């Protein structure tokens, strides 16, 4: 089953072209790692696939649903972990988790939510306001959303950034679980070593073109 099918995607800011005519597909059960130099457009591509930005040309579909015309269906199946943690400072970790999943139309009983918090190792801090969380704890809470929400497509923008070793291991574990239930993962990173543990495919975005990597190059 094809998770992401992109055809001739292009993006330009005004007359400044970021990338042009990207075509690729990612299948269910695959983890695609996107590398590339600074300013190549990795984040931009990820945001387009997350329906946060419009492509200038071309189209893409997510699990068969068109990414431009059927945004709401696409949004149902994906989750994003980006630089912003998408958390409200005044809510507790538990409430944030509850609210975030409620917005996806998933209402869970408190027990499941607690389980999610425990799974990422912050069960003890569920009733603390996010304001008092450290950066690492926030990242873990975002992972808890994925653990419970079980999205079919997971988009990660530099997931290892500023995470310590335990955090990296946990992230990779959750990626593998997503793959195991036939989900798909796309991530951008500068860190080939860490990505090598989970990525099944990879590519380098450079000068506006995507160059696929072979198995050996990836590891």
């Amino acid at each position: 089953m094809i998770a992401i099918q992109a055809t001739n995607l292009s993006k330009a800011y005004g007359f400044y072209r970021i990338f042009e005519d990207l075509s690729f597909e990612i299948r269910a059960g695959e983890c695609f790692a996107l590398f590339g130099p600074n300013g190549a457009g990795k984040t931009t591509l990820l945001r387009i696939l997350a329906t946060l930005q419009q492509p200038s040309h071309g189209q893409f579909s997510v699990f068969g649903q068109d990414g431009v015309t059927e945004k709401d269906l696409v949004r149902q199946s994906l989750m994003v972990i980006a630089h912003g943690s998408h958390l409200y400072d005044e809510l507790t970790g538990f409430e944030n988790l509850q609210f975030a999943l409620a917005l996806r139309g998933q209402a869970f009983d408190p027990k499941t939510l607690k389980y999610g918090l425990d799974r990422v190792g912050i069960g003890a801090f569920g009733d603390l306001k996010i304001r008092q969380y450290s950066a690492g704890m926030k990242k873990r809470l975002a992972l808890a959303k994925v653990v419970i929400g079980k999205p079919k497509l997971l988009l990660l923008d530099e997931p290892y950034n500023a995470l310590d070793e335990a955090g990296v291991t946990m992230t990779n574990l959750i990626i593998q679980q997503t793959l195991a239930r036939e989900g798909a993962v796309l991530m951008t990173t500068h860190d080939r070593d860490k990505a090598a543990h989970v990525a099944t495919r990879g590519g380098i975005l450079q000068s506006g073109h995507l160059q696929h990597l072979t198995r050996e190059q990836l590891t």
Partner: protein
Amino acid sequence: MPFFKTIRWIVWKDLVCELRSRETISSMLFFALIVILVFSFSFSMDQDAARQLIAGIIWVSFTFTGIIGLGKSFSSELQNDCLEALQISPIPKGAVYLGKVLANFLFMLSVEILLFPLFILFFNLDVVEELGILLLVFLLATLGLSAVGTLFSALTVQIRAREVMLPVLLLPLAVPVMIAAVEATRGTLNGDPYAFYSQWIQLLVVFDIIFTVVSFWLFELILDS
């Protein structure tokens, strides 16, 4: 997600955040007090002049105060990029709009209700009889302001110089609502018969409907990338 559930969650989130921090309402309250003080004193009002201006002062200070609350309504969504999370959630965007309008309406109204006794004291108003109508005017005008204000709050939060642009864009649109509210309030406070100013109240109702419906439809475009 179902429409009404979304509204409920949005309102719940805004109210809980506010109850925790009490930032918006308390700062609105202070701001309003200071504005009233500054106005009254700068206009160095003796009793007679005050009677004429009081309706204007009420609504100018409420509008400016409201703008503070409206601004925070969406600027608080900027923390940790929460606005993006709202954008890419599979929820009806109209429901987000209505939830935000409701929350803003509640905040503004509670500030107004807390301030009103002070107005009565400060300006020696005599309002026992017309309290019902006055309340109606307050409800309608506040609804109008928050209906159009929520739209512009969402719009300005995504551009540069947002703190300034909200009042700059919103005030011109708020002027009709303000004028209607001022005239209706002045009529009530003067003890005029209802028929004298009923047209202003009707106008308020019309504005409310137009602003809510139009903003409801436009909001989706603004929130959706």
